[in-house]
Protein backbone atom coordinates (compact mmCIF):
# COMPACT_ATOMS: atom_id res chain seq x y z
CA UNK A 1 0.00 0.00 0.00
CA UNK A 2 2.74 2.46 1.03
CA UNK A 3 4.74 1.44 -2.02
CA UNK A 4 1.85 2.47 -4.24
CA UNK A 5 1.55 5.86 -2.60
CA UNK A 6 5.26 6.38 -3.18
CA UNK A 7 4.96 5.39 -6.82
CA UNK A 8 2.00 7.68 -7.40
CA UNK A 9 3.88 10.56 -5.79
CA UNK A 10 6.96 10.03 -7.94
CA UNK A 11 4.88 9.87 -11.10
CA UNK A 12 3.02 13.01 -10.11
CA UNK A 13 6.27 14.87 -9.50
CA UNK A 14 7.63 13.81 -12.88
CA UNK A 15 4.43 14.87 -14.66
CA UNK A 16 4.44 18.28 -12.98
CA UNK A 17 8.11 18.64 -13.82
CA UNK A 18 7.49 17.87 -17.48
CA UNK A 19 4.63 20.33 -17.59
CA UNK A 20 6.89 23.03 -16.16
CA UNK A 21 9.76 22.11 -18.49
CA UNK A 22 7.62 22.98 -21.50
CA UNK A 23 8.18 26.55 -20.45
CA UNK A 24 5.98 29.53 -21.11
CA UNK A 25 4.00 29.60 -24.31
CA UNK A 26 5.55 31.97 -26.80
CA UNK A 27 3.05 34.50 -28.08
CA UNK A 28 2.82 34.31 -31.87
CA UNK A 29 2.50 37.63 -33.68
CA UNK A 30 3.19 38.89 -37.15
CA UNK A 31 5.63 41.75 -37.55
CA UNK A 32 7.57 43.43 -34.80
CA UNK A 33 7.51 41.86 -31.33
CA UNK A 34 7.22 44.53 -28.63
CA UNK A 35 7.59 44.37 -24.85
CA UNK A 36 6.18 47.23 -22.77
CA UNK A 37 7.50 47.77 -19.26
CA UNK A 38 4.91 50.20 -17.92
CA UNK A 39 1.11 50.40 -17.96
CA UNK A 40 1.25 53.87 -19.53
CA UNK A 41 3.42 52.67 -22.42
CA UNK A 42 1.09 49.74 -22.96
CA UNK A 43 -1.75 52.25 -23.37
CA UNK A 44 0.24 54.33 -25.85
CA UNK A 45 1.09 51.21 -27.87
CA UNK A 46 -2.58 50.26 -28.07
CA UNK A 47 -3.46 53.80 -29.18
CA UNK A 48 -0.89 53.48 -31.94
CA UNK A 49 -2.73 50.34 -33.08
CA UNK A 50 0.11 48.07 -32.00
CA UNK A 51 -1.90 46.02 -29.50
CA UNK A 52 -1.45 42.88 -31.56
CA UNK A 53 2.34 43.22 -31.61
CA UNK A 54 2.80 43.26 -27.85
CA UNK A 55 4.32 40.05 -26.56
CA UNK A 56 4.87 41.11 -22.96
CA UNK A 57 3.73 43.81 -20.54
CA UNK A 58 4.45 44.90 -16.98
CA UNK A 59 2.13 43.82 -14.21
CA UNK A 60 -0.88 46.10 -13.69
CA UNK A 61 -1.09 46.76 -17.43
CA UNK A 62 -4.87 46.46 -17.37
CA UNK A 63 -6.02 49.05 -19.89
CA UNK A 64 -7.39 48.56 -22.48
CA UNK A 65 -8.94 45.25 -21.31
CA UNK A 66 -7.16 43.36 -24.11
CA UNK A 67 -3.86 44.10 -22.32
CA UNK A 68 -4.87 41.76 -19.51
CA UNK A 69 -4.35 38.72 -21.75
CA UNK A 70 -0.71 39.51 -22.51
CA UNK A 71 2.05 37.67 -20.56
CA UNK A 72 3.52 39.60 -17.62
CA UNK A 73 7.21 40.54 -17.47
CA UNK A 74 7.53 41.62 -13.82
CA UNK A 75 6.46 44.71 -11.92
CA UNK A 76 6.79 48.21 -13.30
CA UNK A 77 10.17 49.40 -12.05
CA UNK A 78 11.37 45.85 -11.52
CA UNK A 79 11.36 44.07 -14.88
CA UNK A 80 12.26 40.40 -15.12
CA UNK A 81 15.06 40.28 -17.66
CA UNK A 82 14.89 36.51 -18.17
CA UNK A 83 11.18 36.56 -19.01
CA UNK A 84 11.77 39.46 -21.39
CA UNK A 85 14.52 37.69 -23.32
CA UNK A 86 12.47 34.49 -23.54
CA UNK A 87 9.62 36.46 -25.14
CA UNK A 88 12.01 37.06 -28.07
CA UNK A 89 11.26 40.78 -28.50
CA UNK A 90 12.46 43.04 -31.30
CA UNK A 91 11.77 46.16 -29.27
CA UNK A 92 11.64 46.72 -25.51
CA UNK A 93 10.13 49.99 -24.30
CA UNK A 94 10.58 51.24 -20.76
CA UNK A 95 9.61 54.29 -18.81
CA UNK A 96 12.35 55.98 -16.80
CA UNK A 97 13.01 53.76 -13.77
CA UNK A 98 15.93 53.56 -11.37
CA UNK A 99 19.30 54.00 -13.13
CA UNK A 100 20.75 50.66 -12.02
CA UNK A 101 17.80 48.80 -13.55
CA UNK A 102 18.19 50.76 -16.79
CA UNK A 103 21.90 50.01 -17.05
CA UNK A 104 21.17 46.34 -16.41
CA UNK A 105 18.53 46.32 -19.15
CA UNK A 106 20.78 48.10 -21.61
CA UNK A 107 23.62 45.64 -21.01
CA UNK A 108 21.47 42.54 -21.15
CA UNK A 109 19.52 43.60 -24.22
CA UNK A 110 22.50 44.92 -26.18
CA UNK A 111 22.69 42.90 -29.37
CA UNK A 112 19.41 41.13 -28.59
CA UNK A 113 16.92 43.80 -29.53
CA UNK A 114 16.24 47.52 -29.58
CA UNK A 115 15.73 49.20 -26.20
CA UNK A 116 13.76 52.44 -26.01
CA UNK A 117 13.70 54.60 -22.91
CA UNK A 118 10.87 57.14 -22.59
CA UNK A 119 10.06 59.93 -20.15
CA UNK A 120 6.39 60.63 -19.58
CA UNK A 121 6.21 62.89 -16.51
CA UNK A 122 4.49 65.77 -18.32
CA UNK A 123 1.90 66.03 -21.08
CA UNK A 124 4.53 67.33 -23.51
CA UNK A 125 6.70 64.33 -22.71
CA UNK A 126 3.82 61.98 -23.36
CA UNK A 127 3.38 63.55 -26.81
CA UNK A 128 7.10 63.39 -27.51
CA UNK A 129 7.31 59.80 -26.32
CA UNK A 130 4.40 58.81 -28.53
CA UNK A 131 6.22 60.27 -31.52
CA UNK A 132 9.40 58.41 -30.64
CA UNK A 133 7.46 55.20 -30.20
CA UNK A 134 5.71 55.71 -33.54
CA UNK A 135 9.07 56.22 -35.18
CA UNK A 136 10.57 53.08 -33.67
CA UNK A 137 7.60 50.92 -34.57
CA UNK A 138 6.89 52.23 -38.05
CA UNK A 139 3.53 53.81 -37.27
CA UNK A 140 4.55 57.37 -37.92
CA UNK A 141 1.32 58.38 -39.63
CA UNK A 142 -0.91 57.18 -36.81
CA UNK A 143 1.45 58.76 -34.30
CA UNK A 144 1.30 62.10 -36.08
CA UNK A 145 -2.46 61.99 -36.15
CA UNK A 146 -2.67 61.28 -32.41
CA UNK A 147 -0.13 63.80 -31.29
CA UNK A 148 -1.59 66.53 -33.50
CA UNK A 149 -4.98 65.94 -31.91
CA UNK A 150 -3.54 66.03 -28.38
CA UNK A 151 -1.44 69.08 -29.09
CA UNK A 152 -4.49 70.92 -30.42
CA UNK A 153 -6.46 70.02 -27.33
CA UNK A 154 -3.76 71.38 -25.06
CA UNK A 155 -3.47 74.61 -27.03
CA UNK A 156 -7.23 75.07 -26.97
CA UNK A 157 -7.36 74.68 -23.22
CA UNK A 158 -4.35 76.90 -22.73
CA UNK A 159 -6.04 79.80 -24.46
CA UNK A 160 -9.37 79.16 -22.76
CA UNK A 161 -8.06 79.88 -19.27
CA UNK A 162 -4.98 81.95 -20.04
CA UNK A 163 -6.71 85.19 -19.06
CA UNK A 164 -7.46 83.95 -15.51
CA UNK A 165 -5.43 85.82 -12.93
CA UNK A 166 -3.61 83.75 -10.34
CA UNK A 167 -6.07 84.68 -7.57
CA UNK A 168 -9.10 83.87 -9.73
CA UNK A 169 -8.01 80.30 -10.27
CA UNK A 170 -9.62 77.56 -8.21
CA UNK A 171 -7.23 76.43 -5.47
CA UNK A 172 -6.82 72.68 -5.82
CA UNK A 173 -5.23 70.20 -3.45
CA UNK A 174 -4.64 66.74 -4.83
CA UNK A 175 -4.41 63.94 -2.32
CA UNK A 176 -2.21 61.22 -3.76
CA UNK A 177 -1.75 59.36 -0.48
CA UNK A 178 -3.23 59.65 3.00
CA UNK A 179 -0.66 57.91 5.21
CA UNK A 180 1.39 60.11 5.02
CA UNK A 181 -0.34 63.00 3.27
CA UNK A 182 1.14 63.10 -0.21
CA UNK A 183 0.29 65.52 -3.00
CA UNK A 184 1.53 66.30 -6.49
CA UNK A 185 4.34 68.80 -6.86
CA UNK A 186 5.32 71.14 -9.67
CA UNK A 187 6.36 69.46 -12.90
CA UNK A 188 3.87 66.63 -12.67
CA UNK A 189 1.26 66.02 -15.34
CA UNK A 190 -1.41 66.50 -12.67
CA UNK A 191 -0.14 69.95 -11.79
CA UNK A 192 -0.09 70.81 -15.47
CA UNK A 193 -3.60 69.47 -16.06
CA UNK A 194 -4.99 71.48 -13.15
CA UNK A 195 -3.44 74.62 -14.60
CA UNK A 196 -4.88 73.84 -18.04
CA UNK A 197 -8.30 73.37 -16.46
CA UNK A 198 -8.26 76.82 -14.89
CA UNK A 199 -7.09 75.77 -11.45
CA UNK A 200 -4.01 76.31 -9.34
CA UNK A 201 -2.23 73.29 -7.90
CA UNK A 202 -1.36 74.14 -4.30
CA UNK A 203 1.25 71.40 -4.24
CA UNK A 204 3.35 73.52 -6.61
CA UNK A 205 4.63 75.31 -3.50
CA UNK A 206 6.40 72.15 -2.40
CA UNK A 207 9.36 72.24 -4.75
CA UNK A 208 12.04 69.62 -4.99
CA UNK A 209 9.88 66.54 -5.24
CA UNK A 210 7.37 65.28 -7.78
CA UNK A 211 5.21 63.73 -5.06
CA UNK A 212 5.95 65.72 -1.89
CA UNK A 213 4.79 64.75 1.58
CA UNK A 214 3.15 67.66 3.40
CA UNK A 215 1.79 68.23 6.86
CA UNK A 216 -1.83 68.54 7.83
CA UNK A 217 -1.28 72.13 8.94
CA UNK A 218 0.06 73.09 5.53
CA UNK A 219 -3.08 71.85 3.81
CA UNK A 220 -5.32 73.67 6.31
CA UNK A 221 -3.43 76.92 5.71
CA UNK A 222 -3.55 76.38 1.93
CA UNK A 223 -7.34 76.21 2.33
CA UNK A 224 -8.12 74.50 -1.00
CA UNK A 225 -11.45 75.14 -2.75
CA UNK A 226 -11.43 71.69 -4.31
CA UNK A 227 -9.86 68.49 -3.05
CA UNK A 228 -9.12 65.84 -5.66
CA UNK A 229 -8.50 62.35 -4.38
CA UNK A 230 -6.27 60.08 -6.41
CA UNK A 231 -5.94 56.48 -5.43
CA UNK A 232 -6.66 52.94 -6.26
CA UNK A 233 -9.47 51.02 -4.63
CA UNK A 234 -10.72 53.72 -2.37
CA UNK A 235 -13.83 51.95 -1.19
CA UNK A 236 -16.23 54.70 -0.18
CA UNK A 237 -16.04 56.63 3.03
CA UNK A 238 -13.07 58.67 1.81
CA UNK A 239 -15.09 61.89 1.96
CA UNK A 240 -15.95 61.30 5.60
CA UNK A 241 -12.38 60.37 6.40
CA UNK A 242 -11.01 63.53 4.87
CA UNK A 243 -13.72 65.77 6.33
CA UNK A 244 -13.27 64.41 9.84
CA UNK A 245 -9.55 65.12 10.06
CA UNK A 246 -8.54 67.43 12.86
CA UNK A 247 -8.90 71.06 11.75
CA UNK A 248 -9.99 70.21 8.22
CA UNK A 249 -13.55 71.36 8.89
CA UNK A 250 -12.21 74.90 8.31
CA UNK A 251 -11.17 74.11 4.75
CA UNK A 252 -13.42 75.67 2.12
CA UNK A 253 -13.56 72.51 0.00
CA UNK A 254 -14.70 70.49 3.01
CA UNK A 255 -17.31 73.06 4.00
CA UNK A 256 -18.74 73.03 0.48
CA UNK A 257 -18.43 69.28 0.03
CA UNK A 258 -16.06 69.70 -2.90
CA UNK A 259 -14.10 66.48 -2.46
CA UNK A 260 -13.96 64.53 -5.71
CA UNK A 261 -12.41 61.19 -6.52
CA UNK A 262 -10.46 61.08 -9.77
CA UNK A 263 -10.95 58.09 -12.09
CA UNK A 264 -8.18 55.53 -12.60
CA UNK A 265 -7.07 57.16 -15.84
CA UNK A 266 -5.35 59.86 -13.78
CA UNK A 267 -2.87 57.32 -12.46
CA UNK A 268 -1.52 56.58 -15.91
CA UNK A 269 0.77 58.95 -17.72
CA UNK A 270 -0.90 57.89 -20.93
CA UNK A 271 -3.29 58.92 -23.75
CA UNK A 272 -6.40 58.91 -21.59
CA UNK A 273 -5.17 62.02 -19.80
CA UNK A 274 -5.94 64.15 -22.84
CA UNK A 275 -9.60 63.10 -22.74
CA UNK A 276 -9.72 63.65 -19.00
CA UNK A 277 -8.14 67.11 -19.16
CA UNK A 278 -11.34 68.39 -20.80
CA UNK A 279 -13.52 67.08 -18.00
CA UNK A 280 -11.19 68.32 -15.27
CA UNK A 281 -12.25 71.93 -15.74
CA UNK A 282 -15.76 71.00 -14.71
CA UNK A 283 -14.62 68.77 -11.87
CA UNK A 284 -12.50 71.39 -10.17
CA UNK A 285 -14.83 74.33 -10.68
CA UNK A 286 -18.06 72.57 -9.81
CA UNK A 287 -21.15 72.83 -11.99
CA UNK A 288 -20.29 75.68 -14.31
CA UNK A 289 -19.00 77.86 -11.47
CA UNK A 290 -16.25 80.24 -12.58
CA UNK A 291 -15.80 78.35 -15.83
CA UNK A 292 -17.75 81.03 -17.71
CA UNK A 293 -16.32 83.93 -15.77
CA UNK A 294 -14.78 86.66 -17.87
CA UNK A 295 -16.32 85.45 -21.12
Amino acid at each position, binding site marked *: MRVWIAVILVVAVILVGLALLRGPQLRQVSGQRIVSLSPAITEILFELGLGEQIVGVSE*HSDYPPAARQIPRMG*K*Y*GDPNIELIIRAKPDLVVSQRISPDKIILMQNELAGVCKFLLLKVDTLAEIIESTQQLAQASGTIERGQELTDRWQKKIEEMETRYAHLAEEDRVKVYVE*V*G*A*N*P*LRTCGPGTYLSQMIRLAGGRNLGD*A*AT*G*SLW*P*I*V*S*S*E*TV*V*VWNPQTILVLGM*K*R*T*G*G*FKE*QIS*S*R*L*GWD*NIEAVKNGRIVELPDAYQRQGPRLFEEAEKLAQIIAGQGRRSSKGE
Partner: protein
Amino acid sequence: MNEKAARSFRIGALVASLALVVFLGLAIGPSGWCVNDWTILKLRLGSVLLAAVAGAGLSVAGAVLQGVLRNPLADPYVLGMSGGAGLGYGLVVISGAVWLGSWVLPAGAFAGALATMVLVYLLAKTGRTIPVTTLLLAGVIMGAMTGAMLMFIVSIGSYEQMHDLLWWMLGNVQVTDWKLPLLVGVATAVGVVLAWVFSRELNVMVLGEEEASFLGVRVELAKKLFFVVASLMTGAVVSVCGLIGFVGLIVPHAVRLAIGPDNRKLIPASAVVGAGFLILANTFAQVIIAPRVLPIGVVTAFLGGPFFIYLLRRRRKGVWT
Protein backbone atom coordinates in the same frame (compact mmCIF):
# COMPACT_ATOMS: atom_id res chain seq x y z
CA MET B 1 19.59 71.75 53.00
CA ASN B 2 21.91 72.81 50.23
CA GLU B 3 21.40 69.42 48.56
CA LYS B 4 17.66 69.89 48.67
CA ALA B 5 17.86 73.35 47.11
CA ALA B 6 20.04 72.05 44.30
CA ARG B 7 17.53 69.31 43.68
CA SER B 8 14.52 71.57 43.45
CA PHE B 9 16.52 73.86 41.19
CA ARG B 10 17.22 70.97 38.83
CA ILE B 11 13.56 69.94 38.79
CA GLY B 12 12.54 73.53 38.18
CA ALA B 13 15.00 73.89 35.32
CA LEU B 14 13.74 70.68 33.74
CA VAL B 15 10.09 71.70 33.92
CA ALA B 16 10.89 75.21 32.66
CA SER B 17 12.75 73.85 29.62
CA LEU B 18 9.85 71.54 28.85
CA ALA B 19 7.45 74.49 29.03
CA LEU B 20 9.69 76.47 26.70
CA VAL B 21 9.86 73.62 24.21
CA VAL B 22 6.08 73.19 24.32
CA PHE B 23 5.65 76.90 23.64
CA LEU B 24 8.08 76.76 20.72
CA GLY B 25 6.33 73.68 19.37
CA LEU B 26 3.02 75.54 19.40
CA ALA B 27 4.32 78.84 18.05
CA ILE B 28 6.47 77.50 15.21
CA GLY B 29 5.07 75.33 12.45
CA PRO B 30 5.21 74.76 8.71
CA SER B 31 3.18 77.91 8.11
CA GLY B 32 5.51 80.04 10.19
CA TRP B 33 5.24 81.85 13.51
CA CYS B 34 1.68 81.87 14.85
CA VAL B 35 0.33 82.47 18.34
CA ASN B 36 -3.17 83.83 17.79
CA ASP B 37 -4.97 81.55 15.32
CA TRP B 38 -6.86 78.93 17.30
CA THR B 39 -7.42 76.62 14.30
CA ILE B 40 -3.70 76.33 13.70
CA LEU B 41 -2.80 76.12 17.38
CA LYS B 42 -5.29 73.29 17.85
CA LEU B 43 -3.60 71.33 15.07
CA ARG B 44 -0.15 71.94 16.52
CA LEU B 45 -1.34 71.09 20.00
CA GLY B 46 -2.31 67.64 18.72
CA SER B 47 1.17 67.00 17.32
CA VAL B 48 2.91 68.48 20.37
CA LEU B 49 0.93 66.29 22.75
CA LEU B 50 1.45 63.17 20.68
CA ALA B 51 5.17 63.90 20.39
CA ALA B 52 5.36 64.38 24.16
CA VAL B 53 3.51 61.14 24.82
CA ALA B 54 5.63 59.20 22.33
CA GLY B 55 8.89 60.67 23.63
CA ALA B 56 8.01 59.97 27.25
CA GLY B 57 6.74 56.45 26.54
CA LEU B 58 9.71 55.38 24.42
CA SER B 59 12.27 56.87 26.79
CA VAL B 60 10.78 55.24 29.87
CA ALA B 61 10.38 51.92 28.05
CA GLY B 62 14.05 52.17 27.07
CA ALA B 63 15.15 53.00 30.61
CA VAL B 64 13.13 50.10 32.04
CA LEU B 65 14.46 47.58 29.53
CA GLN B 66 18.06 48.76 29.96
CA GLY B 67 17.61 48.13 33.68
CA VAL B 68 15.80 44.82 33.58
CA LEU B 69 17.97 43.32 30.86
CA ARG B 70 21.10 44.88 32.41
CA ASN B 71 22.14 45.78 28.90
CA PRO B 72 23.15 49.29 27.84
CA LEU B 73 22.24 48.55 24.22
CA ALA B 74 18.60 47.81 25.03
CA ASP B 75 15.97 50.10 23.53
CA PRO B 76 12.18 49.79 23.26
CA TYR B 77 12.54 47.71 20.10
CA VAL B 78 15.08 45.22 21.40
CA LEU B 79 12.38 42.67 22.19
CA GLY B 80 11.04 42.51 18.65
CA MET B 81 8.27 45.12 18.94
CA SER B 82 9.35 47.04 15.86
CA GLY B 83 9.26 44.07 13.52
CA GLY B 84 5.94 42.83 14.88
CA ALA B 85 4.25 46.21 14.67
CA GLY B 86 5.72 46.77 11.21
CA LEU B 87 4.42 43.42 10.03
CA GLY B 88 0.92 44.22 11.32
CA TYR B 89 1.04 47.62 9.64
CA GLY B 90 2.40 46.18 6.41
CA LEU B 91 -0.32 43.54 6.23
CA VAL B 92 -2.97 46.25 6.49
CA VAL B 93 -1.30 48.36 3.78
CA ILE B 94 -0.84 45.49 1.36
CA SER B 95 -4.31 44.02 1.87
CA GLY B 96 -5.88 47.37 1.00
CA ALA B 97 -7.88 47.40 4.23
CA VAL B 98 -6.67 50.96 4.85
CA TRP B 99 -9.85 52.52 3.64
CA LEU B 100 -12.05 50.71 6.13
CA GLY B 101 -11.21 53.59 8.44
CA SER B 102 -8.39 55.56 9.95
CA TRP B 103 -8.22 53.16 12.90
CA VAL B 104 -7.23 50.11 10.82
CA LEU B 105 -3.54 50.98 10.46
CA PRO B 106 -2.84 51.58 14.16
CA ALA B 107 -4.99 48.59 15.07
CA GLY B 108 -2.94 46.38 12.77
CA ALA B 109 0.35 47.68 14.15
CA PHE B 110 -0.80 47.27 17.75
CA ALA B 111 -2.05 43.73 17.09
CA GLY B 112 1.33 42.89 15.55
CA ALA B 113 3.22 44.32 18.53
CA LEU B 114 0.98 42.49 20.98
CA ALA B 115 1.34 39.17 19.15
CA THR B 116 5.12 39.58 19.13
CA MET B 117 5.11 40.33 22.84
CA VAL B 118 3.14 37.17 23.63
CA LEU B 119 5.32 35.02 21.36
CA VAL B 120 8.55 36.38 22.84
CA TYR B 121 7.20 35.73 26.31
CA LEU B 122 6.22 32.14 25.49
CA LEU B 123 9.55 31.50 23.73
CA ALA B 124 11.55 32.87 26.64
CA LYS B 125 9.62 31.07 29.34
CA THR B 126 11.63 28.29 30.92
CA GLY B 127 9.54 26.49 33.51
CA ARG B 128 8.18 29.26 35.70
CA THR B 129 10.99 31.74 35.11
CA ILE B 130 12.06 33.93 32.22
CA PRO B 131 15.86 34.14 32.20
CA VAL B 132 17.09 37.52 30.91
CA THR B 133 19.37 36.03 28.26
CA THR B 134 16.59 33.88 26.84
CA LEU B 135 14.25 36.86 26.82
CA LEU B 136 16.78 38.97 24.95
CA LEU B 137 17.52 36.23 22.44
CA ALA B 138 13.83 35.46 21.89
CA GLY B 139 13.22 39.17 21.30
CA VAL B 140 16.07 39.53 18.83
CA ILE B 141 15.00 36.44 16.91
CA MET B 142 11.34 37.43 16.77
CA GLY B 143 12.41 40.91 15.66
CA ALA B 144 14.55 39.46 12.89
CA MET B 145 11.86 37.07 11.72
CA THR B 146 9.03 39.58 11.67
CA GLY B 147 11.42 42.06 10.06
CA ALA B 148 12.13 39.59 7.28
CA MET B 149 8.42 39.03 6.73
CA LEU B 150 7.92 42.79 6.58
CA MET B 151 10.65 43.02 3.95
CA PHE B 152 8.85 40.32 1.97
CA ILE B 153 5.68 42.40 2.06
CA VAL B 154 7.61 45.51 1.02
CA SER B 155 9.12 43.68 -1.93
CA ILE B 156 5.82 42.42 -3.31
CA GLY B 157 3.97 45.70 -2.70
CA SER B 158 3.51 48.46 -5.22
CA TYR B 159 5.86 51.40 -5.42
CA GLU B 160 3.56 53.71 -3.47
CA GLN B 161 2.88 51.15 -0.77
CA MET B 162 6.60 50.61 -0.37
CA HIS B 163 7.15 54.32 0.02
CA ASP B 164 4.39 54.68 2.62
CA LEU B 165 5.75 51.76 4.63
CA LEU B 166 9.22 53.22 4.60
CA TRP B 167 7.84 56.53 5.78
CA TRP B 168 6.03 54.84 8.64
CA MET B 169 9.20 53.04 9.66
CA LEU B 170 10.88 56.42 10.18
CA GLY B 171 8.08 57.62 12.42
CA ASN B 172 5.77 60.63 12.53
CA VAL B 173 3.47 62.35 14.98
CA GLN B 174 0.84 63.69 12.60
CA VAL B 175 -2.53 63.90 14.34
CA THR B 176 -5.69 63.55 12.29
CA ASP B 177 -8.12 62.91 15.11
CA TRP B 178 -8.15 63.07 18.90
CA LYS B 179 -9.27 59.58 19.84
CA LEU B 180 -6.15 57.54 19.09
CA PRO B 181 -3.59 59.94 20.61
CA LEU B 182 -5.78 60.12 23.69
CA LEU B 183 -5.80 56.34 23.98
CA VAL B 184 -2.03 56.19 23.55
CA GLY B 185 -1.63 59.02 26.04
CA VAL B 186 -3.58 57.18 28.72
CA ALA B 187 -1.71 53.92 28.09
CA THR B 188 1.65 55.68 28.24
CA ALA B 189 0.76 57.64 31.36
CA VAL B 190 -0.22 54.43 33.14
CA GLY B 191 3.04 52.81 32.01
CA VAL B 192 5.22 55.72 33.15
CA VAL B 193 3.52 55.87 36.55
CA LEU B 194 3.86 52.10 37.03
CA ALA B 195 7.54 52.22 36.09
CA TRP B 196 8.05 55.07 38.55
CA VAL B 197 6.18 53.34 41.36
CA PHE B 198 8.35 50.24 40.96
CA SER B 199 11.59 52.11 40.29
CA ARG B 200 13.03 50.97 43.65
CA GLU B 201 12.64 47.35 42.52
CA LEU B 202 14.26 48.26 39.22
CA ASN B 203 17.21 49.77 41.09
CA VAL B 204 17.72 46.57 43.01
CA MET B 205 17.38 44.40 39.92
CA VAL B 206 20.15 46.27 38.17
CA LEU B 207 22.48 44.86 40.83
CA GLY B 208 21.70 41.32 39.69
CA GLU B 209 18.82 38.94 40.13
CA GLU B 210 20.32 37.00 43.04
CA GLU B 211 21.09 40.15 44.96
CA ALA B 212 17.59 41.42 44.26
CA SER B 213 15.97 38.28 45.64
CA PHE B 214 18.13 38.51 48.79
CA LEU B 215 16.84 42.04 49.22
CA GLY B 216 13.28 40.81 49.17
CA VAL B 217 12.25 41.54 45.54
CA ARG B 218 10.09 38.91 43.88
CA VAL B 219 12.34 38.87 40.85
CA GLU B 220 10.28 36.84 38.40
CA LEU B 221 7.13 38.78 39.10
CA ALA B 222 8.95 42.11 38.78
CA LYS B 223 10.57 41.03 35.54
CA LYS B 224 7.20 40.09 34.05
CA LEU B 225 5.68 43.35 35.19
CA PHE B 226 8.46 45.45 33.66
CA PHE B 227 8.38 43.40 30.47
CA VAL B 228 4.63 43.88 30.05
CA VAL B 229 4.70 47.59 30.96
CA ALA B 230 7.56 48.38 28.57
CA SER B 231 6.02 46.31 25.76
CA LEU B 232 2.55 47.79 26.06
CA MET B 233 3.91 51.33 26.14
CA THR B 234 6.07 50.68 23.10
CA GLY B 235 3.25 48.95 21.26
CA ALA B 236 0.83 51.79 21.93
CA VAL B 237 3.27 54.48 20.80
CA VAL B 238 4.47 52.56 17.77
CA SER B 239 0.94 51.81 16.56
CA VAL B 240 0.18 55.52 16.15
CA CYS B 241 3.61 57.08 15.56
CA GLY B 242 5.52 54.40 13.68
CA LEU B 243 9.06 53.39 14.54
CA ILE B 244 10.64 56.53 15.93
CA GLY B 245 14.22 55.51 16.50
CA PHE B 246 16.96 56.75 18.78
CA VAL B 247 14.80 58.32 21.52
CA GLY B 248 14.39 55.17 23.58
CA LEU B 249 18.10 54.44 23.42
CA ILE B 250 19.79 57.77 23.96
CA VAL B 251 17.43 59.69 26.24
CA PRO B 252 17.82 57.29 29.20
CA HIS B 253 21.58 57.22 28.63
CA ALA B 254 21.86 60.98 28.39
CA VAL B 255 19.80 61.43 31.54
CA ARG B 256 21.86 58.79 33.33
CA LEU B 257 25.02 60.60 32.37
CA ALA B 258 23.58 63.80 33.76
CA ILE B 259 21.93 62.74 37.00
CA GLY B 260 23.20 59.26 37.74
CA PRO B 261 21.70 55.78 37.53
CA ASP B 262 19.08 56.00 40.31
CA ASN B 263 15.87 54.86 38.59
CA ARG B 264 13.69 56.79 41.04
CA LYS B 265 14.98 59.96 39.37
CA LEU B 266 15.90 58.45 36.02
CA ILE B 267 12.35 57.33 35.14
CA PRO B 268 10.56 60.68 35.61
CA ALA B 269 13.49 62.67 34.22
CA SER B 270 13.64 60.43 31.13
CA ALA B 271 9.91 60.97 30.60
CA VAL B 272 10.29 64.75 30.69
CA VAL B 273 13.46 64.89 28.59
CA GLY B 274 12.08 62.38 26.08
CA ALA B 275 8.89 64.39 25.70
CA GLY B 276 10.77 67.64 25.19
CA PHE B 277 13.21 66.06 22.78
CA LEU B 278 10.50 64.68 20.50
CA ILE B 279 8.52 67.94 20.55
CA LEU B 280 11.66 69.73 19.40
CA ALA B 281 12.43 67.07 16.81
CA ASN B 282 8.89 67.32 15.44
CA THR B 283 9.12 71.09 15.08
CA PHE B 284 12.37 70.68 13.16
CA ALA B 285 10.84 67.97 10.96
CA GLN B 286 7.90 70.23 10.13
CA VAL B 287 9.71 73.47 9.30
CA ILE B 288 13.12 72.61 7.91
CA ILE B 289 11.98 71.97 4.32
CA ALA B 290 8.42 73.37 4.64
CA PRO B 291 5.93 72.88 3.13
CA ARG B 292 7.40 69.42 2.79
CA VAL B 293 7.85 67.30 5.89
CA LEU B 294 10.77 65.20 7.09
CA PRO B 295 10.24 61.92 8.92
CA ILE B 296 10.81 62.57 12.60
CA GLY B 297 13.20 59.62 12.90
CA VAL B 298 15.66 61.38 10.61
CA VAL B 299 15.64 64.41 12.87
CA THR B 300 16.01 62.43 16.11
CA ALA B 301 19.09 60.77 14.68
CA PHE B 302 20.55 64.08 13.47
CA LEU B 303 19.89 65.95 16.73
CA GLY B 304 20.41 63.06 19.09
CA GLY B 305 23.59 61.53 17.74
CA PRO B 306 25.95 64.51 18.04
CA PHE B 307 24.47 65.54 21.40
CA PHE B 308 25.05 62.07 22.77
CA ILE B 309 28.63 62.00 21.53
CA TYR B 310 29.17 65.37 23.20
CA LEU B 311 27.84 63.99 26.50
CA LEU B 312 30.10 60.96 26.27
CA ARG B 313 33.18 63.06 25.57
CA ARG B 314 32.46 65.42 28.43
CA ARG B 315 32.08 62.54 30.80
CA ARG B 316 35.37 61.06 29.75
CA LYS B 317 37.13 64.32 30.62
CA GLY B 318 35.67 63.94 34.09
CA VAL B 319 33.51 67.03 34.10
CA TRP B 320 30.51 65.07 35.38
CA THR B 321 30.76 64.35 39.02
